[in-house]
C-alpha cells in the first residue's frame, strides 16, 4: 500500500481514478506532522492507544522527588572473602546514606559440604588396601576445592586414578562415615563395576569409525531382512498346510530367535527357504526333520510366495473362492502342469479380489462425492473423476463370467451398477488379454 503510495501508482486496478485523489489526501491527512511515515507505519498505521511519554512531563518534573539520589564510588567488602580486600564500586546513595548490609553477591557463594574425618575415624572405618592415607586426604582436599566435579578432579589428581575409582572411594568413605555417625542406611551404594562397564560401552560407541558403523548398519539390515522373510514363510506355512496343527506364536518366536543367531550363515530369500525349515527343531513335522518333502511342498512354497504380499484375510478369500468353484485347495494329482495351472488360478483369483477391493473403494468415494455434489457447484474435476470411475469399472465388470456375477454382488457392499452391463465378447476379450499378460 505504502509503496504504491510513494510511487504514485493507483492503489486498486479497478476503482475509478476519482477515488485515487481523495484517498492519498486522506492518508496524508491522517498522518501526524513531525512523524515520518515509515515510523508511523511501524505501529500499524494507528495512533498509540495510550500516551507513552509526554514531553510536558519531561520538562516539568525536575527535582520534585523527595529523596536525593547520587552515585558514589565507594569501597566495599564481601563476607565471601576471607581477607578484607577492599574493592571499589559505584553505589547508589540515598540522601547521603550509603546502603548497609553485606555485598549483594555474597549470597551466591555456595559450596559443597564434604565430610571430614579424624585420624581415629580413618583408622577404624576407612582403611583400604588400594588407597593410602595421603591419597585419600588429597582426594578429599580436591573434592572440596573442585566441588565434587570428578572429571576435573581426575584430570588434576597427582596419582593416576580413573574417575570411577575416585568416585568409588569418595562414596565409600562418605557412606562409611555417615553410617558410623548416625546409623541410617541411606541410598544405594555406588556401583563401580556397573559404572566402569557403562563407560567402556559408551567409549566404544563413540570411538567407532565410520567404516565400522557402516558395517554394523549393513549387518543389522540383513538380519532384519532375513527375519522378515523367515516370518513370512513361517506364518504362511503354518496356515496353509493342513498337516500341522501348530500355528502358535511361540514356535515362530523361537524359530526367529534361532534364525537371528544363524544369520551370518544364511542369505536366502523366502522362495528357497527350504534348508532353514529343516533347522527348526520346534516344528513337530517329522517329515521335515528328515528333509523329506511331499511333492506338494514346492507348490506350497510357491503359493506362499504368491500370497506373501496379500494378507491373511485375502488368502482366506482366495481359498473360499477356490472352494466355491469346486477346486480343491490342493490339487489331487500334483503333476507339473496341474500345479502350474493351480498357481495360475490362484493368481488370477488374487487379482480379481484386489480389483474388487479397488472397485469398492472407488465406489464408496464416488457415492460420497455424489452426496457432496448436491451442496457444491458442479465443476469439471468432479465430472472427470466420475468419468474415471466409470471407465475403470468397465473392464472390471466385463472380465467376469456369468456365474461369478452373483458372487460379486455378494461380495460388494455398495449397490452394483453393472448388473445391466452384458459381458459382450469384445469386452471379454480385452480382460483375457490382460490376464494372460499376468500369467
Amino acid at each position, binding site marked *: 500500500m505504502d509503496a504504491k503510495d510513494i510511487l504514485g501508482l493507483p492503489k486498486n486496478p479497478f476503482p475509478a481514478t476519482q477515488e485515487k485523489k481523495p484517498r492519498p489526501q486522506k492518508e496524508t491527512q491522517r498522518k501526524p506532522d513531525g512523524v515520518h511515515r515509515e515510523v508511523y507505519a511501524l505501529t500499524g498505521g494507528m495512533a498509540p492507544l495510550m500516551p507513552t511519554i509526554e514531553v510536558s512531563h519531561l520538562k516539568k518534573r525536575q527535582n520534585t522527588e523527595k529523596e536525593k539520589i547520587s552515585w558514589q564510588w565507594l569501597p566495599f567488602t564481601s563476607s565471601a572473602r576471607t581477607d578484607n*580486600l577492599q574493592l571499589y564500586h559505584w553505589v547508589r546513595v540515598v540522601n547521603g546514606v550509603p546502603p548497609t548490609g553485606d555485598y549483594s553477591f555474597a549470597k551466591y557463594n555456595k559450596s559443597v559440604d564434604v565430610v571430614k574425618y579424624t585420624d581415629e575415624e580413618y583408622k577404624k572405618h576407612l582403611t583400604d588396601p588400594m588407597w593410602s592415607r595421603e591419597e585419600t586426604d588429597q582426594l578429599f582436599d580436591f573434592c572440596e576445592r573442585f566441588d565434587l566435579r570428578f572429571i576435573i578432579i581426575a584430570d588434576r589428581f597427582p596419582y593416576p586414578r580413573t574417575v570411577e575409582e575416585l568416585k568409588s572411594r569418595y562414596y565409600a568413605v562418605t557412606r562409611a562415615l555417615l553410617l558410623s555417625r548416625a546409623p541410617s542406611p541411606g541410598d544405594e551404594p555406588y556401583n563401580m563395576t556397573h559404572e566402569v562397564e557403562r563407560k567402556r560401552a559408551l567409549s566404544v560407541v563413540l570411538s567407532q569409525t565410520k567404516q565400522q558403523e557402516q558395517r554394523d548398519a549393513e549387518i543389522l539390515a540383513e538380519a532384519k531382512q532375513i527375519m522378515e522373510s523367515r516370518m513370512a514363510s513361517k506364518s504362511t506355512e503354518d496356515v496353509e498346510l493342513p498337516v500341522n496343527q501348530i500355528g502358535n506364536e511361540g514356535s515362530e518366536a523361537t524359530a526367529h530367535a534361532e534364525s537371528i543367531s544363524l544369520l551370518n550363515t544364511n542369505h536366502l530369500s523366502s522362495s528357497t527357504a527350504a534348508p532353514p525349515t529343516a533347522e527348526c527343531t520346534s516344528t513337530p513335522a517329522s517329515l521335515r526333520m528328515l528333509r523329506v518333502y511331499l511333492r506338494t511342498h514346492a507348490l506350497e512354497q510357491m503359493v506362499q510366495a504368491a500370497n506373501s504380499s496379500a494378507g491373511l484375510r485375502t488368502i482366506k478369500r482366495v481359498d473360499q473362492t477356490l472352494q466355491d468353484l469346486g477346486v480343491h485347495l490342493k490339487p489331487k494329482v500334483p503333476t507339473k502342469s496341474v500345479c502350474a495351472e493351480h498357481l495360475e488360478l490362484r493368481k488370477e483369483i488374487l487379482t480379481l479380489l484386489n480389483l474388487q477391493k479397488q472397485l469398492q473403494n472407488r465406489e464408496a468415494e464416488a457415492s460420497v462425492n455424489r452426496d457432496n455434489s448436491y451442496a457444491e457447484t458442479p465443476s469439471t474435476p468432479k465430472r472427470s473423476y466420475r468419468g474415471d470411475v466409470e471407465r475403470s469399472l468397465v473392464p472390471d465388470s466385463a472380465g467376469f463370467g456369468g456365474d461369478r456375477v452373483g458372487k460379486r454382488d455378494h461380495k460388494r457392499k455398495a449397490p452394483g451398477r453393472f448388473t445391466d452391463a452384458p459381458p459382450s465378447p469384445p469386452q471379454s476379450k480385452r480382460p483375457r488379454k490382460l490376464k494372460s499378460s499376468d500369467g
Partner: protein
Amino acid sequence: MYGGDEVSAIVLDLGSYTCKAGYAGEDAPKAVFPSVVGSIYQAGATDEVKHEKDSDSMYDSENADKTKTRKLERLLIDPKEHPMLLAEPSFNTPQQREKAAELMFESYKVPALFLAKNAVLTSFASGRATSLVVDSGGGSTTIAAVHDGYVLQKAVSTSPIGGEFLTDCMMKSLESKGVMIKPRYSFKRKEIRPGEFQTVDLDIPNTTESYKLYSQRAVASDIKESVCRVPDTAFEESAYANVPMTPYELPDGQTIEIGADRFKIPDVLFNPSLVQTIPGMESFAGSASVSGLPQMVIESINRCDADIKRELFSSILLAGGTASMLQLKERLEKELMEEAPQAARVKVLASGNSIERRFSVWIGGSILASLGSFQQLWFSKAEYEEHGVSNIQRKCP
C-alpha cells in the same frame, strides 16, 4: 546488568602476536598492539625487534616487563588502583604462573590479581561452561577442553602452526615467484598527476634486518588476510592449477596475481605436510609430528572422559585471529563429521563478528572480571603476603 558489578578491573591478554588490554565490562580492548619489543643497544643507535613467540619469555625476560609497562602506560592507569585479570595460555606451567604473580605484586603493586586460562575465557565469552576451544592465534594453535569452567589439562594440545607461520609461508611463496615485497618505510609515493602515483625509493640507513623483516611480514599478513580462503576439500596441486588468479595491489603500487597459493596456504592448517611443497619452507622440522586441525581436535576429545565427549563434540568454539579465515568453520565441521563417530553430533561455533573472534579471550576476561560473584575470587595482596605465591595455584585453578 543483573549479575554485573564493575570494580574497574583491568583485563590483560598478552598474546603471541598482539597484546590486548582494557577495562573489564567493556566489549573490546582499548589497547591492542603487537607483541614486539624494540630494544636499543647502547653501543650503536640501532633498533632490534624481538618477537615474543615463546610463552616462557612472556613472563621471564625484561621484555615482558617492558611490554607490560608499555601497555599500562598506554592505558594511562596506575596499577595500584585496579585489580588485574591476566589471561594465560592453557598449558602454562605452575612456575610461570608464580613468576607472573610475583611480577605483578612486586613491581606493579596491584591490589588483587587473578590468572585465568585462555580457553576458559573464550568459553565464557560464548556463554558456555563446557566446550572444546580451538584457539588459532598468531604464534600457535591450541586446542583445550573446558569442562564446567575448568581446563582439562590432559586434553590440551598445541601446534606451532599459527598465523605467523602462515604469513611466513606466504612470504616465501611470493619470494620464490620473484615478487619483491618492499617494506613500507622504504618508499614514498608522490602524486605527479591527479590519480597517478610514482614510487620513489627512500634509503633509510641503519635499519636492521629484523625490522625490515617485520615490515615485510606486515605486508604479507595483509595479503594473507585479504586473499586467502580455506579450500572446501584437501588441497591438490593438480586440481587448483587452473584456478583464476586474484589481483592484489602492494603498497608500492605493483600488482601481483595470486592463484593456487590462496588455497594452499590455509590448507597447511589441515595438512601440515603441505609445507614441504612450499619452496623455502622445507626446513620446517616439526612437520612430521604435527597433525592437522581435525586430527588434533579428535585426539583431544578422545583423551577426555567418555561422559563429556558428546557435549564437547557439539560445542567446538573457534577463536583467535587465524580463525577469521574464510570458510575455516565450514571446512573444519565437514572434516570432523567424517572422522567423528556417528553417535556424536558435531557442531563448530564461531561468532560471526571477526572482532569478537580475535578478542574472544579478552572479552571473556571482561565478562568474568565484571561479574558480581567473581569479586570473591580475587587473589589479593594480603593473601599473597600471608600465604606466599604458591597459594595462587589454589586460588586460580
